[in-house]
C-alpha cells in the first residue's frame, strides 16, 4: 500500500517535472490552480472569498463564450441568455419545486443547454455580424417574457430567498472553485480535441468544411449546447451564491462583458478569457473600494481595455505567451523563450544571424565538435 502510494507520488513528480514545469505557461497555470484551492487556508477573509468566487463564476462564463466564439466562430452577443437561464431555472426549481440545490443546478444547466440548442438552431443560417446581432435579441426577448409574468418570475425583482449550497462561506467557495477548475479544464480539453479542431475548421471556412463531409450544423449545435451548458452552470452557481436571481443576469451589459473578457484575454484559447476575468474583475472591484475615485471604476476599466488593446490587439494572453514561450521552428512544440534549443527536438530556438565570412577562422567554422553537439538529442 505504501509502496503503491510512493509509486504514484514518484510518477506524479516525474510528470510534474517533465511535462508541467518545463513550460512557464503550464507552471503558472498549476500555481494559479493551487492558489485558488489553498486561498481559504491562507486568508480567512469572507470578502476576499466572495470576490474570488465571483471571479471563478465569471471565468467559467467567459470561457464558455470563447468555446462558442473563438473556436466555433459563432460570436454571440447574447451569451447572458444562457447564464440567466441557468440562474433563473435553478432558482425557480429550488424555490417552487423545493428540490435539492444540486439538482437545481443540473436542471439549470439542462435548460440553458436547451436554450443553446434553440438559439443555435435559429441562427444556423446566419453568418458573421448577422449572427452576432441576432443573438443580441434573445436575452431581451426573454426579459420581455419574464416581465410579462411577474407573479411567476418576480418581475424586476427576480427570484430571491434561495438556500445556499452550504452554510459556510468556505464550503461554498470550494464548490465554486472546484467547479470552475473542472469546467475550464473540460472546456479546454474539448477545444484541444478533434472536436475542437473541427470547430476551428468550421470557423475558418464553413463551406470548405462542409465540402470535406463535416456535418457542420450538428457541430455548431453541439458547440452551442456545450457552451450554453457551462454558462448555465455558472449562472446556477451564481444564483445559489447570491441567494437569488434577477433580470440583471440577462442584461445586455453582461453579454458585452463576455465579449470584452473574451477578446481582451485572447479568443480561441479558453484560458485567455479566464486570465482576463482574473485580471479585470478583482481590479475593478479593488478600484471600486476606494471612496475617492470608486465611482470611476467603469471608466478606468474601459480605458485599460482600450489602451491594452492598442498594444496587444490579439489579446493579453497571446502577447504574454509570445514573450515567455517560443515555438520551435522545426517541430512547432513550445519551449520556454529563454532556452537556446528546443526541448523536444534540440533545434536552435532563436534565429542566429550568420556571421559574414570577413575574417575567416577555419578551425572555428569547421569544428566538428560544435557540429555534432547541435544535432544531438538531449
Amino acid at each position: 500500500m505504501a509502496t503503491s502510494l510512493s509509486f504514484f507520488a514518484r510518477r506524479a513528480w516525474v510528470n510534474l517535472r517533465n511535462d508541467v514545469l518545463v513550460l512557464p505557461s503550464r507552471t503558472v497555470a498549476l500555481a494559479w490552480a493551487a492558489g485558488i484551492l489553498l486561498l481559504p487556508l491562507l486568508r480567512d477573509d469572507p470578502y476576499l472569498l466572495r470576490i474570488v468566487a465571483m471571479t471563478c463564476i465569471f471565468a467559467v462564463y467567459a470561457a464558455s463564450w470563447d468555446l462558442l466564439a473563438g473556436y466555433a466562430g459563432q460570436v454571440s452577443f447574447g451569451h447572458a441568455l444562457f447564464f440567466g437561464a441557468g440562474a433563473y431555472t435553478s432558482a425557480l426549481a429550488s424555490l417552487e419545486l423545493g428540490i435539492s440545490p444540486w439538482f437545481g443546478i443540473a436542471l439549470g444547466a439542462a435548460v440553458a443547454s436547451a436554450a443553446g440548442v434553440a438559439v443555435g438552431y435559429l441562427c444556423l443560417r446566419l453568418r458573421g455580424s448577422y449572427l452576432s446581432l441576432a443573438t443580441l435579441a434573445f436575452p431581451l426577448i426573454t426579459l420581455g417574457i419574464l416581465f410579462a409574468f411577474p407573479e411567476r418570475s418576480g418581475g424586476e425583482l427576480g427570484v430571491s430567498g434561495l438556500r445556499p449550497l452550504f452554510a459556510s462561506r468556505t464550503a461554498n467557495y470550494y464548490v465554486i472553485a472546484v467547479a470552475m477548475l473542472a469546467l475550464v479544464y473540460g472546456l479546454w480539453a474539448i477545444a484541444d480535441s478533434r472536436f475542437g479542431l473541427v470547430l476551428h475548421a468550421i470557423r475558418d471556412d464553413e463551406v470548405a468544411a462542409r465540402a470535406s463531409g463535416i456535418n457542420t450544423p450538428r457541430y455548431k449545435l453541439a458547440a452551442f449546447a456545450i457552451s450554453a451548458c457551462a454558462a448555465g452552470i455558472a449562472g446556477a452557481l451564481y444564483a445559489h451564491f447570491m441567494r437569488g436571481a434577477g433580470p440583471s443576469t440577462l442584461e445586455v451589459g453582461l453579454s458585452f462583458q463576455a465579449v470584452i473578457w473574451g477578446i481582451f484575454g485572447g479568443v480561441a484559447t479558453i484560458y485567455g478569457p479566464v486570465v482576463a476575468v482574473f485580471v479585470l474583475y478583482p481590479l475593478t472591484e479593488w478600484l471600486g473600494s476606494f471612496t475617492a475615485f470608486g465611482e470611476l471604476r467603469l471608466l478606468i476599466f474601459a480605458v485599460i481595455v482600450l489602451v491594452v488593446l492598442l498594444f496587444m490587439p490579439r489579446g493579453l494572453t497571446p502577447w504574454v505567451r509570445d514573450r515567455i514561450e517560443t515555438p520551435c521552428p522545426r517541430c512547432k512544440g513550445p519551449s520556454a523563450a529563454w532556452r537556446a534549443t528546443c526541448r523536444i527536438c534540440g533545434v536552435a530556438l532563436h534565429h542566429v544571424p550568420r556571421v559574414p565570412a570577413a575574417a575567416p577562422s577555419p578551425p572555428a567554422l569547421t569544428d566538428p565538435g560544435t557540429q555534432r553537439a547541435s544535432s544531438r538529442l538531449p
Partner: protein
Amino acid sequence: MLRFIALAAAAALAAPAAWAQDKVKIAILGPMAFAQGENHWAGAELARDEINGAGGISVGGKKKQIELVRVDTNEIQSVTDATNAMERAITRDKADFVIGGFRSEAVLAMQEVAMDNKKLFLGVGAADAKLGGNVEKDYNRYKYWFRVSPLNSPDLGRTIFTVLGTIAGQIRASLHKETPKVAILAEKVLWTQAIVAGAQANLPKMKMEVVGLWQPSATATDVTAELAAIERAGADIVFTALSGPVGIVVGRQMGERNMKAIAFGINVEGQKDGFWQATAAKGNYVATLDTYAEVEMTPKTIPFVKAFKARFQKAPTYTAATYDAINLLKESIEKAGSADADKLVPVLEQSNTVGTAASLEFTKTHDPVWGIGKTTGIAVQWQDGEKVPFWPPQVKGMKPFKLPGERQAKAEPAK
C-alpha cells in the same frame, strides 16, 4: 518633571486609541453617482454633524461619535457590485450598522448579506413588499431589517386612493361630470401590480370609470402611442404609477400635446427638482406622491428641509430619510443602553418616534405603519415650475390643487 512628560505622552498616545473605539460606525450604502445615493449621503451627513455636534450617541453611558462610511454600491448598474460593497462594508470596514439601498433587486441580495452577518440594516429607498415579507417568513434570520422609508408599495396605493378621493370632488365640479374617465398608465413591473389592481377595483366604487390600462416599460422613451390612445378614449384623469424616466416623458409629451387630462398618481421622477427642466417646462399640473416639502407634516419637517436646502442647494428626496434612520438609531441605542443588534431589535419594534416626514412606527413586517398622523407621504403638484404640496390639506403649508387651462379650480382647497 520627567514623570509628568511621560504621563502626558502616554495620555496623548492612548487618546487616539481610545478615541478610535469611541465611534459608532454607520455605513451608508447607495448609488453614489446618482441622485438617490447623493441624497442618502447628504441626509446622513446632516444627521451625523447634528448628533456629533451635540456630543454624540450615549451608548450605555459612554458618549460615542458617529463615523460614517460612504459605500458606493453601483447598484443601478450591477447587483453583484452592490453585494460586494455590502460585504466589504461589514467585514472590511467593520461597520456596526448599515443604512440605505435603492434598487429593490439589489436590496434583496444585500439584505441576505446583512442578515448573514447579523447586522442591523435600515432600508431607505426600496419600496418592495418582499423585503418586509421576508421578516414574516423567517423572523429569526431577517429580524435585523427595518424599512424606514418609503412606505411599501401596497401602502403607497392606499395613500393614492385617499388623495384621489380628496380631489375627486374638485375634479367633478370643474369637469361638470359625475363620473370622470380615468386611464391607468402604469409600468409593467411588480410593484405597480397591487396599485393597478386596487385602481381597477376602487375607482368604480369612487364613481370613476376606468377607460383602459396602458403599461409601458420603465425605460420607455416615447409614449406617443399610449397618449394618443388615451386621448381617443376621452380620459379626464391619467392615473400614473411610474418610477423610471418614462415619468418625465409622460409629463413632457402630455404637455406638448396640450392634453386636457390631468396626470396624478406616483411619478418618482416628478418628485425631483430636475423634473421641470427635464420636461423642458412642459410638465405642468403633473401631480404625484412625495415625501418632503416645506410643510409641517411633523415639527421637524420644515427645519430639516430648510437646513438641507441651505447646505446642499437642492431639495431633499425620499432617500434623504437616512437622516431619520440615524436619529432613530440614536434614540434606540440610548433607550436600549447598548449598540448590540439583538438588543436593539425589540427596541426598534416598539419605537414610536417623530421623524422628519412622518411618525415612525413599525408593523410586524418591519415596514412603516400607514395611517394619517403616522406615515402617509404627501402629494405635490407641479405648478408653473414649482413643486407645490397640496395634500393632506389640513396640514399647515399646503396649497390648492390646480386643474389645467380653462378648467381652473375654485380657490379653496378641497376637503
